[in-house]
Protein backbone atom coordinates (compact mmCIF):
# COMPACT_ATOMS: atom_id res chain seq x y z
CA UNK A 1 0.00 0.00 0.00
CA UNK A 2 1.35 3.40 -0.98
CA UNK A 3 1.00 6.43 1.26
CA UNK A 4 2.15 10.06 1.07
CA UNK A 5 4.40 11.15 3.92
CA UNK A 6 4.80 14.83 4.80
CA UNK A 7 8.33 15.48 6.04
CA UNK A 8 9.01 18.29 8.55
CA UNK A 9 11.73 20.81 7.72
CA UNK A 10 14.23 19.35 10.19
CA UNK A 11 14.08 15.92 8.49
CA UNK A 12 14.35 17.11 4.89
CA UNK A 13 18.11 16.61 4.87
CA UNK A 14 17.24 12.90 4.67
CA UNK A 15 14.85 13.32 1.74
CA UNK A 16 17.01 15.58 -0.42
CA UNK A 17 14.89 18.59 0.56
CA UNK A 18 11.60 16.98 -0.46
CA UNK A 19 8.63 18.03 1.70
CA UNK A 20 6.58 15.00 0.68
CA UNK A 21 7.65 11.47 -0.27
CA UNK A 22 5.82 8.21 -0.91
CA UNK A 23 6.30 5.05 1.10
CA UNK A 24 4.87 1.55 1.25
CA UNK A 25 3.31 -0.24 4.20
CA UNK A 26 0.03 -1.42 5.74
CA UNK A 27 0.87 0.03 9.16
CA UNK A 28 2.78 3.06 10.40
CA UNK A 29 5.62 0.79 11.54
CA UNK A 30 5.92 -0.63 8.01
CA UNK A 31 5.78 2.84 6.48
CA UNK A 32 8.61 4.04 8.75
CA UNK A 33 10.66 0.93 7.89
CA UNK A 34 10.16 1.63 4.19
CA UNK A 35 11.11 5.29 4.69
CA UNK A 36 14.33 4.14 6.39
CA UNK A 37 15.12 1.87 3.45
CA UNK A 38 14.98 4.79 1.02
CA UNK A 39 16.16 7.60 3.30
CA UNK A 40 18.71 6.05 5.62
CA UNK A 41 18.87 7.54 9.13
CA UNK A 42 15.38 9.00 9.19
CA UNK A 43 13.88 6.29 11.44
CA UNK A 44 16.35 6.99 14.25
CA UNK A 45 15.13 10.58 14.31
CA UNK A 46 11.50 9.58 14.71
CA UNK A 47 11.93 6.51 16.93
CA UNK A 48 13.89 6.22 20.18
CA UNK A 49 16.40 3.50 21.08
CA UNK A 50 13.59 1.14 22.10
CA UNK A 51 11.79 1.55 18.79
CA UNK A 52 8.96 3.70 20.17
CA UNK A 53 7.87 7.07 18.79
CA UNK A 54 9.93 9.83 20.41
CA UNK A 55 7.83 11.77 22.88
CA UNK A 56 8.20 15.07 21.05
CA UNK A 57 7.15 13.67 17.68
CA UNK A 58 3.51 13.71 16.66
CA UNK A 59 2.43 11.48 13.78
CA UNK A 60 -0.93 11.74 12.06
CA UNK A 61 -2.50 9.26 9.68
CA UNK A 62 -4.93 11.36 7.69
CA UNK A 63 -6.43 13.55 10.45
CA UNK A 64 -5.87 11.21 13.36
CA UNK A 65 -3.08 11.47 15.92
CA UNK A 66 -1.74 7.90 16.08
CA UNK A 67 -1.47 8.18 19.87
CA UNK A 68 -5.28 8.16 19.90
CA UNK A 69 -5.27 5.19 17.52
CA UNK A 70 -2.94 2.18 17.63
CA UNK A 71 0.43 3.94 17.70
CA UNK A 72 2.94 2.30 15.39
CA UNK A 73 0.37 -0.40 14.62
CA UNK A 74 -2.05 2.18 13.20
CA UNK A 75 -3.30 1.07 9.77
CA UNK A 76 -2.16 3.15 6.79
CA UNK A 77 -4.73 2.60 4.01
CA UNK A 78 -3.72 2.99 0.38
CA UNK A 79 -3.46 6.68 -0.51
CA UNK A 80 -3.43 7.84 3.12
CA UNK A 81 -1.54 10.96 4.18
CA UNK A 82 1.00 10.55 6.95
CA UNK A 83 2.31 13.70 8.68
CA UNK A 84 5.34 13.77 10.95
CA UNK A 85 5.31 16.92 13.08
CA UNK A 86 7.46 18.16 15.98
CA UNK A 87 5.32 18.69 19.11
CA UNK A 88 4.66 22.34 19.87
CA UNK A 89 2.10 24.16 21.92
CA UNK A 90 0.63 27.49 22.86
CA UNK A 91 -1.65 28.20 25.78
CA UNK A 92 -0.30 28.83 29.24
Amino acid at each position, binding site marked *: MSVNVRIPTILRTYTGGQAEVTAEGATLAEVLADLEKNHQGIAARVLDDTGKLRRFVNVYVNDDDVRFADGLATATPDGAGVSIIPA*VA*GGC
Partner: protein
Amino acid sequence: MAVQSVESSTTSSTPSAASRAFGPAVALSCRECGERFELGPVFACEVCFGPLEVAYELPSGDPEGLRRRIEAGPNSIWRYAPLLPVPADVADLPSLNPGFTQLVKADNLARELGVTGELHIKDDSGNPTHSFKDRVVAIAVQAARTFGFTTLSCSSTGNLAGAVGAAAARAGFRSCVFIPHDLEAGKVVMAAVYGGDLVGIEGTYDDVNRFCSELIGDPAGEGWGFVNVNLRPYYGEGSKTLAYEICEQLGWRLPDQIVIPIASGSQLTKIDKGLKELIALGLVEDKPYKIFGAQAEGCSPVSAAFKAGHDVVRPQKPRTIAKSLAIGNPADGPYVLDIARRTGGAVEDVDDERIVDAIKLLARTEGIFAETAGGVTVGVTKKLIEDGLLDPSLTTVVLNTGDGLKTLDAVAPTTGPSAIIRPTLDSFREAGLV
Protein backbone atom coordinates in the same frame (compact mmCIF):
# COMPACT_ATOMS: atom_id res chain seq x y z
CA MET B 1 31.00 42.45 33.87
CA ALA B 2 31.62 38.83 34.82
CA VAL B 3 29.31 36.25 33.36
CA GLN B 4 27.73 33.25 34.99
CA SER B 5 26.25 30.29 33.21
CA VAL B 6 22.69 29.55 34.26
CA GLU B 7 20.48 26.58 33.37
CA SER B 8 21.89 24.56 30.53
CA SER B 9 24.46 27.16 29.48
CA THR B 10 27.95 25.76 29.70
CA THR B 11 29.92 27.94 27.34
CA SER B 12 32.26 30.57 28.68
CA SER B 13 32.54 32.57 25.48
CA THR B 14 31.08 36.07 25.26
CA PRO B 15 28.13 36.69 22.91
CA SER B 16 29.10 37.49 19.33
CA ALA B 17 28.09 40.73 17.66
CA ALA B 18 25.44 38.82 15.73
CA SER B 19 23.75 37.72 18.92
CA ARG B 20 23.74 41.15 20.63
CA ALA B 21 20.17 41.48 19.44
CA PHE B 22 19.48 38.73 21.95
CA GLY B 23 21.24 40.37 24.91
CA PRO B 24 22.59 37.75 27.34
CA ALA B 25 21.30 34.80 25.26
CA VAL B 26 24.11 32.77 23.70
CA ALA B 27 22.52 29.67 22.15
CA LEU B 28 19.51 27.44 21.83
CA SER B 29 19.75 24.26 23.85
CA CYS B 30 17.69 21.06 23.57
CA ARG B 31 15.86 20.28 26.81
CA GLU B 32 15.93 16.58 26.00
CA CYS B 33 19.46 15.80 24.82
CA GLY B 34 21.37 19.04 25.52
CA GLU B 35 22.47 19.55 21.89
CA ARG B 36 23.17 23.24 21.27
CA PHE B 37 22.27 25.32 18.20
CA GLU B 38 22.87 28.88 17.04
CA LEU B 39 20.18 31.41 17.93
CA GLY B 40 17.74 31.17 15.03
CA PRO B 41 14.06 30.71 14.12
CA VAL B 42 14.02 27.00 15.02
CA PHE B 43 12.13 25.24 17.77
CA ALA B 44 12.83 21.50 17.61
CA CYS B 45 16.10 19.64 18.06
CA GLU B 46 17.48 18.15 14.85
CA VAL B 47 18.73 15.15 16.81
CA CYS B 48 15.76 14.11 18.95
CA PHE B 49 12.86 16.51 18.18
CA GLY B 50 13.08 17.84 21.77
CA PRO B 51 12.06 21.44 22.45
CA LEU B 52 14.77 24.09 22.21
CA GLU B 53 15.14 26.77 24.84
CA VAL B 54 17.32 29.83 25.27
CA ALA B 55 20.61 29.41 27.12
CA TYR B 56 22.22 32.47 28.68
CA GLU B 57 25.31 33.94 30.15
CA LEU B 58 23.65 36.13 32.73
CA PRO B 59 25.32 39.02 34.56
CA SER B 60 26.58 38.04 37.99
CA GLY B 61 28.92 39.10 40.74
CA ASP B 62 26.98 42.22 41.68
CA PRO B 63 23.43 41.32 42.73
CA GLU B 64 22.91 44.67 44.47
CA GLY B 65 23.89 46.56 41.32
CA LEU B 66 21.61 44.39 39.19
CA ARG B 67 18.74 44.84 41.61
CA ARG B 68 19.16 48.64 41.52
CA ARG B 69 19.32 48.58 37.71
CA ILE B 70 16.09 46.58 37.55
CA GLU B 71 14.30 48.81 40.05
CA ALA B 72 15.31 51.91 38.07
CA GLY B 73 13.91 50.41 34.86
CA PRO B 74 10.53 51.00 33.17
CA ASN B 75 7.29 49.69 34.71
CA SER B 76 7.10 46.85 32.21
CA ILE B 77 8.84 43.55 31.51
CA TRP B 78 11.69 45.54 29.97
CA ARG B 79 13.01 46.32 33.46
CA TYR B 80 14.27 42.72 33.28
CA ALA B 81 15.97 43.16 29.89
CA PRO B 82 19.37 42.08 31.34
CA LEU B 83 17.81 38.63 31.92
CA LEU B 84 15.91 38.28 28.62
CA PRO B 85 16.83 37.44 24.99
CA VAL B 86 16.35 41.05 23.86
CA PRO B 87 18.66 43.95 22.97
CA ALA B 88 19.67 46.36 25.72
CA ASP B 89 17.68 49.21 24.09
CA VAL B 90 14.49 47.14 23.80
CA ALA B 91 12.42 49.67 25.78
CA ASP B 92 12.98 52.24 22.99
CA LEU B 93 11.47 49.97 20.29
CA PRO B 94 7.73 49.96 19.47
CA SER B 95 6.00 47.47 21.77
CA LEU B 96 2.88 47.14 23.92
CA ASN B 97 5.26 47.31 26.92
CA PRO B 98 3.41 44.68 28.94
CA GLY B 99 4.01 43.49 32.46
CA PHE B 100 4.54 44.84 35.94
CA THR B 101 0.93 43.95 36.68
CA GLN B 102 -0.49 44.09 40.19
CA LEU B 103 0.33 41.56 42.87
CA VAL B 104 -2.84 41.83 44.94
CA LYS B 105 -2.68 40.89 48.62
CA ALA B 106 -5.88 38.89 48.82
CA ASP B 107 -6.80 39.11 52.51
CA ASN B 108 -10.54 38.67 51.93
CA LEU B 109 -10.04 35.56 49.81
CA ALA B 110 -7.52 34.28 52.37
CA ARG B 111 -10.17 34.48 55.09
CA GLU B 112 -12.69 32.59 52.94
CA LEU B 113 -10.17 29.84 52.20
CA GLY B 114 -8.83 29.58 55.75
CA VAL B 115 -5.39 30.86 54.73
CA THR B 116 -3.51 32.22 57.74
CA GLY B 117 -0.32 33.10 55.83
CA GLU B 118 -0.06 35.61 52.98
CA LEU B 119 -2.19 34.99 49.90
CA HIS B 120 -1.54 37.02 46.75
CA ILE B 121 -3.14 37.07 43.31
CA LYS B 122 -0.78 37.90 40.46
CA ASP B 123 -3.37 39.62 38.28
CA ASP B 124 -2.18 39.50 34.68
CA SER B 125 -5.54 40.67 33.37
CA GLY B 126 -3.92 44.11 33.69
CA ASN B 127 -1.81 43.61 30.58
CA PRO B 128 -2.53 45.62 27.39
CA THR B 129 -4.72 42.91 25.82
CA HIS B 130 -5.83 41.60 29.21
CA SER B 131 -3.88 38.36 29.43
CA PHE B 132 -0.36 37.20 30.23
CA LYS B 133 0.15 36.53 26.52
CA ASP B 134 1.37 40.09 25.99
CA ARG B 135 4.53 39.12 27.88
CA VAL B 136 5.49 36.22 25.66
CA VAL B 137 4.47 37.94 22.43
CA ALA B 138 6.60 41.00 23.27
CA ILE B 139 9.73 38.83 23.38
CA ALA B 140 8.73 36.97 20.19
CA VAL B 141 8.21 40.28 18.35
CA GLN B 142 11.80 41.28 19.12
CA ALA B 143 13.03 37.96 17.72
CA ALA B 144 10.81 38.33 14.63
CA ARG B 145 12.30 41.76 14.01
CA THR B 146 15.84 40.39 14.26
CA PHE B 147 15.10 37.46 11.93
CA GLY B 148 13.52 39.78 9.35
CA PHE B 149 10.01 38.30 9.46
CA THR B 150 7.27 40.56 8.12
CA THR B 151 4.18 38.59 9.19
CA LEU B 152 3.39 37.55 12.75
CA SER B 153 1.24 34.49 13.25
CA CYS B 154 0.20 31.93 15.85
CA SER B 155 -2.08 29.09 16.72
CA SER B 156 -4.25 30.25 19.56
CA THR B 157 -7.00 29.40 22.02
CA GLY B 158 -7.99 33.08 21.80
CA ASN B 159 -5.88 35.18 24.15
CA LEU B 160 -2.73 34.75 22.09
CA ALA B 161 -4.49 35.73 18.86
CA GLY B 162 -5.48 39.07 20.41
CA ALA B 163 -2.03 39.63 21.84
CA VAL B 164 -0.38 38.94 18.46
CA GLY B 165 -2.86 41.15 16.58
CA ALA B 166 -2.27 44.07 18.92
CA ALA B 167 1.50 43.67 19.10
CA ALA B 168 1.72 43.44 15.30
CA ALA B 169 -0.30 46.62 14.93
CA ARG B 170 1.95 48.52 17.34
CA ALA B 171 5.22 47.16 15.96
CA GLY B 172 4.33 47.46 12.27
CA PHE B 173 3.97 43.81 11.23
CA ARG B 174 1.24 42.16 9.20
CA SER B 175 -0.60 39.53 11.25
CA CYS B 176 -2.50 36.37 10.35
CA VAL B 177 -3.62 34.25 13.29
CA PHE B 178 -5.40 30.89 13.54
CA ILE B 179 -7.98 29.84 16.14
CA PRO B 180 -10.53 27.05 16.63
CA HIS B 181 -13.72 28.38 15.00
CA ASP B 182 -15.89 27.91 18.11
CA LEU B 183 -14.11 30.15 20.62
CA GLU B 184 -15.86 32.55 23.02
CA ALA B 185 -17.27 35.57 21.15
CA GLY B 186 -15.26 38.02 23.26
CA LYS B 187 -12.00 36.42 22.27
CA VAL B 188 -12.91 36.27 18.57
CA VAL B 189 -13.81 39.97 18.46
CA MET B 190 -10.70 40.89 20.41
CA ALA B 191 -8.51 38.91 18.05
CA ALA B 192 -10.10 40.47 14.96
CA VAL B 193 -10.34 44.12 15.98
CA TYR B 194 -6.68 44.94 15.42
CA GLY B 195 -7.09 44.65 11.67
CA GLY B 196 -4.98 41.60 10.89
CA ASP B 197 -6.31 38.41 9.35
CA LEU B 198 -8.09 36.01 11.71
CA VAL B 199 -8.75 32.49 10.46
CA GLY B 200 -11.15 30.11 12.24
CA ILE B 201 -10.29 26.45 11.75
CA GLU B 202 -12.87 23.69 12.02
CA GLY B 203 -11.24 21.64 14.75
CA THR B 204 -9.74 21.75 18.23
CA TYR B 205 -6.72 23.76 19.31
CA ASP B 206 -4.55 20.69 18.71
CA ASP B 207 -5.80 20.63 15.11
CA VAL B 208 -4.95 24.32 14.73
CA ASN B 209 -1.51 23.70 16.13
CA ARG B 210 -0.89 20.86 13.73
CA PHE B 211 -2.02 23.02 10.80
CA CYS B 212 0.40 25.80 11.77
CA SER B 213 3.28 23.34 12.13
CA GLU B 214 2.62 22.15 8.57
CA LEU B 215 2.26 25.71 7.27
CA ILE B 216 5.75 26.54 8.56
CA GLY B 217 7.25 23.84 6.37
CA ASP B 218 5.33 25.02 3.32
CA PRO B 219 6.22 27.88 0.94
CA ALA B 220 2.92 29.53 1.97
CA GLY B 221 4.41 30.17 5.39
CA GLU B 222 7.73 31.54 4.13
CA GLY B 223 8.82 34.65 6.02
CA TRP B 224 6.25 34.15 8.75
CA GLY B 225 7.12 34.29 12.42
CA PHE B 226 4.79 31.98 14.33
CA VAL B 227 5.28 33.26 17.84
CA ASN B 228 4.51 29.93 19.51
CA VAL B 229 6.05 27.65 16.90
CA ASN B 230 9.25 28.81 15.14
CA LEU B 231 9.75 31.68 17.62
CA ARG B 232 8.71 29.52 20.56
CA PRO B 233 12.10 29.38 22.33
CA TYR B 234 12.10 33.19 22.62
CA TYR B 235 8.36 33.53 23.22
CA GLY B 236 8.45 31.12 26.16
CA GLU B 237 11.05 33.24 27.94
CA GLY B 238 8.44 35.99 28.42
CA SER B 239 6.79 33.88 31.12
CA LYS B 240 9.95 34.13 33.22
CA THR B 241 9.01 37.74 33.88
CA LEU B 242 6.07 36.54 35.99
CA ALA B 243 8.58 34.92 38.35
CA TYR B 244 10.76 38.02 38.41
CA GLU B 245 7.84 40.35 39.13
CA ILE B 246 6.33 38.16 41.83
CA CYS B 247 9.64 38.05 43.71
CA GLU B 248 10.37 41.76 43.26
CA GLN B 249 6.84 42.69 44.35
CA LEU B 250 7.21 40.48 47.44
CA GLY B 251 10.29 42.55 48.33
CA TRP B 252 12.80 40.32 46.52
CA ARG B 253 11.45 37.26 48.27
CA LEU B 254 10.53 33.82 46.90
CA PRO B 255 6.96 32.78 47.59
CA ASP B 256 6.63 29.45 49.41
CA GLN B 257 3.95 28.15 47.06
CA ILE B 258 2.75 29.16 43.57
CA VAL B 259 -0.37 27.91 41.80
CA ILE B 260 -0.06 28.11 38.00
CA PRO B 261 -2.50 27.13 35.25
CA ILE B 262 -1.43 24.43 32.80
CA ALA B 263 -2.32 24.29 29.13
CA SER B 264 0.88 23.31 27.32
CA GLY B 265 2.79 23.60 30.60
CA SER B 266 5.20 26.16 29.15
CA GLN B 267 4.34 28.95 31.57
CA LEU B 268 4.88 26.76 34.61
CA THR B 269 8.26 25.53 33.42
CA LYS B 270 9.42 29.06 32.62
CA ILE B 271 8.33 30.43 35.99
CA ASP B 272 10.41 27.69 37.58
CA LYS B 273 13.32 28.66 35.31
CA GLY B 274 12.92 32.33 36.33
CA LEU B 275 12.92 31.49 40.04
CA LYS B 276 16.05 29.38 39.65
CA GLU B 277 17.78 32.24 37.80
CA LEU B 278 16.96 34.73 40.57
CA ILE B 279 18.44 32.32 43.12
CA ALA B 280 21.56 31.72 41.00
CA LEU B 281 22.04 35.47 40.55
CA GLY B 282 21.74 36.13 44.29
CA LEU B 283 18.68 38.35 43.85
CA VAL B 284 16.61 36.25 46.27
CA GLU B 285 17.48 33.97 49.14
CA ASP B 286 18.00 30.34 48.14
CA LYS B 287 15.19 28.48 49.85
CA PRO B 288 12.69 25.79 48.84
CA TYR B 289 9.48 26.65 47.01
CA LYS B 290 6.62 24.47 45.82
CA ILE B 291 5.01 24.71 42.40
CA PHE B 292 1.44 23.54 41.89
CA GLY B 293 -0.17 23.05 38.47
CA ALA B 294 -3.88 23.64 37.86
CA GLN B 295 -6.03 22.11 35.13
CA ALA B 296 -9.71 21.83 34.27
CA GLU B 297 -11.09 18.33 34.80
CA GLY B 298 -12.34 18.29 31.19
CA CYS B 299 -8.78 18.66 29.95
CA SER B 300 -6.49 17.25 32.61
CA PRO B 301 -3.84 15.10 30.95
CA VAL B 302 -1.05 16.40 33.21
CA SER B 303 -3.08 16.13 36.39
CA ALA B 304 -4.09 12.57 35.45
CA ALA B 305 -0.45 11.61 34.83
CA PHE B 306 0.65 13.21 38.12
CA LYS B 307 -1.97 11.35 40.13
CA ALA B 308 -1.17 8.05 38.37
CA GLY B 309 2.55 8.47 39.06
CA HIS B 310 3.36 8.47 35.33
CA ASP B 311 6.30 10.27 33.69
CA VAL B 312 4.55 10.61 30.34
CA VAL B 313 1.32 12.40 29.53
CA ARG B 314 -1.44 10.61 27.66
CA PRO B 315 -3.27 13.08 25.37
CA GLN B 316 -6.96 13.79 25.95
CA LYS B 317 -9.76 15.25 23.83
CA PRO B 318 -10.61 18.53 25.66
CA ARG B 319 -14.13 19.19 26.91
CA THR B 320 -14.19 22.15 29.31
CA ILE B 321 -15.35 25.75 29.59
CA ALA B 322 -11.71 26.70 30.30
CA LYS B 323 -10.89 26.96 26.61
CA SER B 324 -7.63 28.86 27.11
CA LEU B 325 -6.34 25.75 28.88
CA ALA B 326 -7.88 23.23 26.47
CA ILE B 327 -4.71 21.67 25.10
CA GLY B 328 -5.14 17.92 25.08
CA ASN B 329 -1.57 17.14 24.03
CA PRO B 330 0.59 19.39 26.22
CA ALA B 331 4.16 19.56 24.89
CA ASP B 332 5.70 20.56 28.22
CA GLY B 333 3.61 18.14 30.27
CA PRO B 334 6.51 15.81 31.19
CA TYR B 335 8.53 18.78 32.45
CA VAL B 336 5.61 19.98 34.56
CA LEU B 337 5.49 16.55 36.20
CA ASP B 338 9.22 16.75 36.93
CA ILE B 339 8.93 20.23 38.47
CA ALA B 340 5.86 19.49 40.60
CA ARG B 341 7.59 16.39 41.98
CA ARG B 342 11.00 18.05 42.40
CA THR B 343 9.59 20.98 44.38
CA GLY B 344 7.13 18.93 46.45
CA GLY B 345 4.10 20.50 44.77
CA ALA B 346 1.25 18.76 42.95
CA VAL B 347 -0.98 18.94 39.87
CA GLU B 348 -4.73 19.06 40.49
CA ASP B 349 -7.89 19.69 38.51
CA VAL B 350 -11.40 21.04 39.12
CA ASP B 351 -14.65 20.57 37.20
CA ASP B 352 -16.48 23.32 35.33
CA GLU B 353 -18.91 23.99 38.19
CA ARG B 354 -16.06 24.63 40.61
CA ILE B 355 -14.36 26.83 38.01
CA VAL B 356 -17.43 29.08 37.80
CA ASP B 357 -17.78 29.11 41.61
CA ALA B 358 -14.13 30.13 41.91
CA ILE B 359 -14.49 32.96 39.37
CA LYS B 360 -17.37 34.33 41.44
CA LEU B 361 -15.47 33.79 44.71
CA LEU B 362 -12.48 35.80 43.49
CA ALA B 363 -14.76 38.55 42.13
CA ARG B 364 -16.79 38.69 45.34
CA THR B 365 -13.81 38.76 47.70
CA GLU B 366 -11.18 40.74 45.82
CA GLY B 367 -12.91 42.63 43.03
CA ILE B 368 -10.96 40.68 40.40
CA PHE B 369 -12.97 39.29 37.49
CA ALA B 370 -10.89 36.41 36.19
CA GLU B 371 -11.30 34.45 32.99
CA THR B 372 -11.91 30.72 33.26
CA ALA B 373 -8.18 29.98 33.66
CA GLY B 374 -8.24 32.15 36.80
CA GLY B 375 -11.24 30.16 37.99
CA VAL B 376 -9.14 27.04 37.52
CA THR B 377 -6.23 28.30 39.64
CA VAL B 378 -8.43 29.67 42.43
CA GLY B 379 -10.60 26.54 42.37
CA VAL B 380 -7.56 24.28 42.49
CA THR B 381 -6.06 26.35 45.34
CA LYS B 382 -9.25 25.81 47.35
CA LYS B 383 -9.19 22.09 46.61
CA LEU B 384 -5.49 21.76 47.48
CA ILE B 385 -6.13 23.44 50.86
CA GLU B 386 -9.13 21.17 51.50
CA ASP B 387 -7.01 18.13 50.69
CA GLY B 388 -4.12 19.26 52.87
CA LEU B 389 -1.69 19.53 49.94
CA LEU B 390 -1.18 23.30 50.13
CA ASP B 391 -0.06 24.77 53.47
CA PRO B 392 -2.39 27.67 54.40
CA SER B 393 0.13 29.11 56.86
CA LEU B 394 2.72 29.97 54.20
CA THR B 395 3.08 32.69 51.53
CA THR B 396 1.14 31.60 48.45
CA VAL B 397 0.79 33.27 45.05
CA VAL B 398 -2.07 32.30 42.71
CA LEU B 399 -1.95 33.34 39.06
CA ASN B 400 -4.83 34.93 37.23
CA THR B 401 -3.71 34.95 33.61
CA GLY B 402 -6.66 36.68 31.93
CA ASP B 403 -9.70 38.94 32.13
CA GLY B 404 -13.23 37.67 32.83
CA LEU B 405 -14.66 39.97 30.16
CA LYS B 406 -13.23 37.53 27.60
CA THR B 407 -15.17 34.55 28.94
CA LEU B 408 -18.53 36.10 29.87
CA ASP B 409 -20.31 32.98 28.62
CA ALA B 410 -18.93 31.00 31.57
CA VAL B 411 -20.69 33.07 34.22
CA ALA B 412 -23.53 34.75 32.30
CA PRO B 413 -26.05 31.91 32.84
CA THR B 414 -25.79 32.24 36.63
CA THR B 415 -24.98 35.93 36.99
CA GLY B 416 -27.28 38.88 36.45
CA PRO B 417 -29.33 41.64 38.05
CA SER B 418 -30.60 41.11 41.60
CA ALA B 419 -33.94 42.58 40.53
CA ILE B 420 -35.60 44.48 37.70
CA ILE B 421 -37.95 47.11 39.09
CA ARG B 422 -40.07 50.09 38.13
CA PRO B 423 -38.34 53.44 38.82
CA THR B 424 -40.19 53.97 42.11
CA LEU B 425 -39.18 53.69 45.76
CA ASP B 426 -42.09 51.37 46.43
CA SER B 427 -40.93 49.02 43.74
CA PHE B 428 -37.39 49.04 45.17
CA ARG B 429 -38.72 48.24 48.65
CA GLU B 430 -40.86 45.42 47.25
CA ALA B 431 -37.78 43.88 45.68
CA GLY B 432 -36.56 43.04 49.17
CA LEU B 433 -33.11 44.57 48.84
CA VAL B 434 -33.44 46.87 51.86
